[in-house]
């Protein structure tokens, strides 16, 4: 009997011991490794409020060069070389296979997801710690996150023609069908209302002055100026959205106030960056070019923050030379007439600037001029421009054209406000009849005069005898075409012109505005089939399966 009792005790203790250990084990399974920040711990302090914002910016950096390859390869500026991998050829051939990773919009959604997550987490943090951060800092941070998101959606719209619209972060598996898939027009409307209406009372129009935050009371240093450029500014973003949406008055009024910039000398296309200095926007340190550059994505080779621009464009080792400029695009530069009215060729944007011949091959040179020496050629850290002054001027000109302010539109395109005012002293018209604005913007040289090109006007018609609505429409379309041609040169390789083609082809319901330009770069046999393809507007966008 005693033996049996001993056994009972033995079993009992064993059992109790096991239960004790198992009972207290929940934290045992919550291992915390040092290389991940768990969801529940974020945002844990004010510092992480900034880190999270930087995280969105880092995701923008990851995706920044993508639109250049996707749009210029499908536009008329780029074609793949023999070195290029299948992915690039597929994009060029408008024949994209489902697993083409370059065509994958994932990285744009990553920006959106991080922005959504940040906005949600920032409000949670603010609610829990109302006094941890001032509204003057908190609100611009959230507003900036909204604009990162709007920018990413706008890119999705322009590249894919549709997007799944998300208000909240997707950090766990979800039923995607509950989120609306918006077509382009609907998406633009949604983005405008997000910019204007915002989230929880914070709209997309607040700007954080980083120097005030980092070094209050100290005058702005060069470094801080770059910080101020990293997030798309409210005005260019809204101007572009309004333009896509056909709100031309808003484009012009917001655009004029933006370039007026409270009377400062910025964003005027003045004579500071004329002729040979034009090219410096693309390779010089952005803080030296703040008169032109509004928003950029900075890169830093030393910190492993690089893009693929030089790698894909340069044919100097170790770069890969996947892409080169097309004959069609180069031909456009060569046909331009300079200000003297005689000399042919875009002297400051064409050969040797946007492109050149190196080692016997045509190479895109626009971004690599500062990197051509052997000790620099591998440093793939040239900045990507989100918005610059010329974009805004071309947008304003496009809107003015739609508003039938042809002379004023042409002023921005051709030889500038300065010449316009001196030529039309007595009959200034909207929007160049605003004395306050004029006092500041009368230094404007116009897009073409800045690089020593002569003015262009729609062929076969004179502004003076636009006596029928048909003639007005014809002139308008002609000027649109000129604006488009100008975009193709001014913004070659910057992911602008293909979108302008879409915008105008849509506006005029004339797919040939796009199809003719793009198909011109293909060899003769291919050209016709690509043209036929692009006469169908649904083929303008990348068809990528989001249900995978």
């Amino acid at each position, binding site marked *: 009997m005693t033996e049996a009792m001993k056994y009972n005790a033995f079993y009992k203790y064993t059992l109790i011991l096991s239960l004790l250990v198992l009972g207290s*084990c929940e934290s045992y399974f919550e291992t915390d490794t040092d290389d991940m920040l768990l969801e529940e711990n974020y945002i844990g302090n004010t510092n*992480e409020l900034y880190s999270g914002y*930087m995280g969105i910016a*880092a995701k923008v950096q990851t995706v920044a060069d993508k639109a250049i390859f996707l749009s210029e390869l499908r536009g008329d500026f780029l074609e793949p070389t*023999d070195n290029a991998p299948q992915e690039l050829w597929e994009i060029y051939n408008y024949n994209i296979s489902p697993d083409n990773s370059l065509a994958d919009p994932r990285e744009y959604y*990553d920006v*959106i*997801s991080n922005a959504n997550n940040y906005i949600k987490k920032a409000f949670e943090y603010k609610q829990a710690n109302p006094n941890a951060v001032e509204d003057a800092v908190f609100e611009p941070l959230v507003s900036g996150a909204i604009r990162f998101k709007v920018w990413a959606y706008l890119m999705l719209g322009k590249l894919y023609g549709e997007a799944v619209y998300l208000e909240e972060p997707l950090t766990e598996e979800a039923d995607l069908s509950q989120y609306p898939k918006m077509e382009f027009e609907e998406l633009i409307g949604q983005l405008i209302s997000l910019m204007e209406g915002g989230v929880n009372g914070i709209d997309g129009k607040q700007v954080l002055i980083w120097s005030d935050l980092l070094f209050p009371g100290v005058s702005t240093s060069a470094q801080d100026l770059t910080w101020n450029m990293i997030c798309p500014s409210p005005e260019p973003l809204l101007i572009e959205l309004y333009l896509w949406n056909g709100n031309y008055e808003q484009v012009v009024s917001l655009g004029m106030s933006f370039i007026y910039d409270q009377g400062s000398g910025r964003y005027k296309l003045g004579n500071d960056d004329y002729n040979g200095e034009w090219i410096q926007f693309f390779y010089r340190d952005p803080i030296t070019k703040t008169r032109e550059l509004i928003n950029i994505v900075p890169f830093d080779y030393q910190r492993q923050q690089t893009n693929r621009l030089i790698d894909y464009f340069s044919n100097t080792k170790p770069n890969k030379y996947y892409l080169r400029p097309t004959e069609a695009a180069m031909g456009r530069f060569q046909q331009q007439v300079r200000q003297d009215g005689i000399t042919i060729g875009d002297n400051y944007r064409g050969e040797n600037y946007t492109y050149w011949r190196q080692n016997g091959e045509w190479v895109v040179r626009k971004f690599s001029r500062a990197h051509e020496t052997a000790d620099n050629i591998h440093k793939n850290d040239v900045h990507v421009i989100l918005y610059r002054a010329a974009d805004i001027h071309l947008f304003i000109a496009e809107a003015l054209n739609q508003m039938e302010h042809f002379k004023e539109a042409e002023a921005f395109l051709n030889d500038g406000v300065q010449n316009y005012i001196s030529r039309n002293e007595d009959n200034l018209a909207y929007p160049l009849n605003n004395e306050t604005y004029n006092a500041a913007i009368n230094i404007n040289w116009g897009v073409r005069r800045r690089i020593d090109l002569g003015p262009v006007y729609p062929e076969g018609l004179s502004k003076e005898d636009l006596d029928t609505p048909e003639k007005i429409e014809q002139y308008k379309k002609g000027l649109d075409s000129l604006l488009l041609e100008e975009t193709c040169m001014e913004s070659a390789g910057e992911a602008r012109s293909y979108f302008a083609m879409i915008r105008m082809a849509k506006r005029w319901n004339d797919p040939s505005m796009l199809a003719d330009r793009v198909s011109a770069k293909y060899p003769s046999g291919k050209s016709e089939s690509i043209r036929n393809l692009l006469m169908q507007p649904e083929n303008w966008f990348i068809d990528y399966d989001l249900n995978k």
Partner: protein
Amino acid sequence: MKMEGTMIKQHKVALLIAVMMVLAFGANAQQVLKGKVSSPYGDAPISDAYISIANEESTAQTDEQGEFSIEIDYLEGNLTVWAPGFQEQVIPLLGRDYIEIVLIPQRTDYYDVPAKSDARGNMKGEVLPAERFKPSAMYVEDVLQGAFPGLNVINKGGMPGEGATVNLRGIRSLTGKNAPLIIINGMPYLPDMNNSAIIQGYSPSMFNVLSVDDIDNIKLVTGSAASRYGSMGSNGVLLIETSSPKDMETVIEFSGQYGMAYNNKRLPVLGVDDFKSYIGDVGLTRYEDMGDMLDLFPFLRDDPDYYYNFLYNNQTDWQELVDKSAFVTSNHLRVKGGDAIAKYDLSVGASNQGGTYDNTNFTRYTTRLNAQIELSQRFQLVTSMGLTYGNNKLHEQILNDATNPLMASLYKAPILSPFKKDEYNNQLPAYDAVRQFGVSNPLAVVNDTKMESDNFDAFLNTGLNFEVNDHAKMQAVFGYYSGYKRQSAFIPGRSDQTIAPQEEGVALNTARAGTGKVSNLFYKVSADIVEELAGNPLEAGVGYQGVMTRHEFDGGFGRNTSSDFYKTLSYVDAEGRYFSGYHNAWNWMSLYGYAKYTMGNQWIASLNMSADGASSTGAEAARFGVYPGLEMTWQAKHSPWLKNSQVVNQLDVHVGYGLTGNSQFPTGLSRQFYTSQAYRQLAGIVNGNVANTSLGRERNQNLDAGIDAGFFDRRLVASVNVYHTISSDVIFPQSISSVYGIEEMYINGARLENKGVEAAIQLRLVDNRNISWSVGGTINKNQNKITAMEGAEGTLIREMNGGNWAVSSSIGQNPYNFYGFVSNGVISTQEEADALGLIDYKGDQFNAGDIHFEDLNQDGVIDDQDRTIIGDASPDFFGSFFTQVRYKKLSLSAQFTFSAGNQIYNGVRREMESLSDFRNQSMAVDKRWQTDGQQTDIPKANYGDPMGNSRFSDRWIEDGSYLRLNNVTLSYQLGKWSFFEGGEVYLAGENLLTFTDYLGLDPVLSYAYQPAWQGVDYGAMPLPSTVKFGFNLQF
């Protein structure tokens, strides 16, 4: 008399038994057991054999005729018979009063199919005792090779200290761990099995922490018994017991081995004339102007007066220069002994294995102390401590001529000199520079690049045993393993220009360094009992155990120190410098139990079970999983109709079902977390994962059945086992909609099945006192198949090495197939090419001299969509066989290993037949297509390979089947002499012969532990042949 029973539950029957037992008591106070003990050598009687019976007082000894007689209470229980020089035998009496026993002599053979063991409280498995280790074994892998049915041990290459990939029964997990769980002295050992970030293509042997001389036995647990380790047991369990003190007698053992390793395998490369002709050929496709080409390659001009001819007038066999024979030594000393209170086993070992390139070797120092202390009559303290320091000097085994001497010596032009020369053709002491072919000087690679790994490992394991009473004991164990490694790499090139710049010419020299740390903390409390239940023995136990592991690695990477003299990270250029690393923490705990019930000696039912949880599973997954494993064994030999058979010694039939799991996957997969991404000089926080919070354990149902048999005094021993494993809830990365912003999410969505047969047989053809000859071996067949992949109906393609090649997974197929293009020879004529009209994705046509790739989707375009499965690395069959002949004390044994039906991606040959640049090529390119109409299988030379003739295709997939003479040993047993107790001396040859059709250097290779990387030849150093002399002595 007891009934020979099956399960009897009714009280009536129990009562009847009780009555019968009482009757038996009364009737048979004493029984007389008689018997005879003889040896298998001509039935010669054995005198002075000891006979005892469990739980009985009386013992007996045999007389001159080998006969004995013993008085006992019942004719039941187990009879133990032992005689000096013979193996102990345990025989159940089963009511017999006369018994004939044939004792099997103690053997000195190294090969023996492992026998099943399920000693009290332990899991059932096949045991390989130290006596069966090949005497020339230096590493644990040498012992495991070909030893256990089902276990495939594939040497990673010839680099010393790299070990082997060990796999049981194929691929069972796509994300989790695929290697068997290693238990050292009862404690799970979970090393870091990633390839090094510092030294590419290198991962150290997981067994480097242990000296093979310190091992007492190795046991492999495969079937349902592995359920005791629950969600760690899905890949089998390899239990290693280190040597422990058994007797009080002081014993000193010394073993030493000394030998040479050499490599006589060479790949045929172009000689001087062929090389020049090739350069001319490929040069014409690069330079339009002949003059440009001749400026770059002046030796193509046949100009005897050319001043620089001395640079190009050499005939260098680079492979010959790089290969060196190396010394292999190992010394190991053990002292064991003690008294009734404390016993110890202390050993120290030192070994040094040179590789067959200069500056490769593995030096290791090990020490281990195992002790047992009787604290009181019931308390016993058992501790073991081990310390290991290992130093590896290495070269990278990747397709890079700056760090892999093999690749450098294959690529390097034969016309160049290894040393600088002056214009009078005199050799100067410095190594010659890279020169215009862009290939590093192999001698500089061997001697000037520095790749080193230092490893410090410490084991501590302490247990307290408490004997509650005769039936029960309790145990508490605490164990800790800490592994620390420091790796550094330096690739020079800046000062002497003897090594080609890295990173596309940007890195003139490269420095990398990193440290890694692994810790395993283990604890266990357990209780075991032995009881009688309904007259039959029941062994049972419960326990609670847990492991906490941390794996961390941090590395720094930089380039361009100011001169090659400065080899550390502190001197690298700020530009291009970066850091990276990983940290994974994984905890596991388990409540386990087992029971083994033997019924009437014939039927054994055993149950192993674990209820366990691991930190890797998601918050919404079930925290604990329950893993039962049940096995029934019928010991037919003990049945009435076989128990007296002299033919059948053993006939066990077993069938088992076991559920195990796999929770050994990274903890982060199931978590929603954020990670860091740098932005300018600041750190940004970004989404890290789309969490699958319901991510659970993988589930492995294993059904196996088999027979273990022995006949004719165990002259014929055989076992055969069939198994079928269904692995469900297998985790794989499912690609998710781009809308998530994250590429993939890990889900429990796949299902894998493994089916196979394992067999082992051993036949003693001749067996006399003076001469014996036996043969035997194992053969294993395994088939892996994916049977489901949720949401991935098509083929899951995994691009490897930046898209250089690919593996695929799809339903109905092996988990990792080589995925590439199918080739159909070289297009012979332009007419034929035009008729085919195939173009590539660029629109360029495949012309005469290009490879005819199959247009699988028949769209006229050869592009990525034309890829398909072109092979896989899993063997259809593998195994080993051996033969051993003994004459008196001299014996000769040989072991062969083989593998059949596995494919290898020969990445080296792809490089050597790519015909795309000015590096030297394989001799095969002499057959390259040169004229229209030429019939050949090697395409034309074309600079840059614009048509992708050397793309990843079946051209590079080869049959990796082989038959290898793994080991030959000639040994002599030494007798007792003076203070000298005995031992053996031997001469051994390892890896002397390999029969294979594989065109690379060595068909036995494994790039990494991960299953996706098997069968990839990236320029692995071939396993050297080794000849050794050695001895094991006891004092």
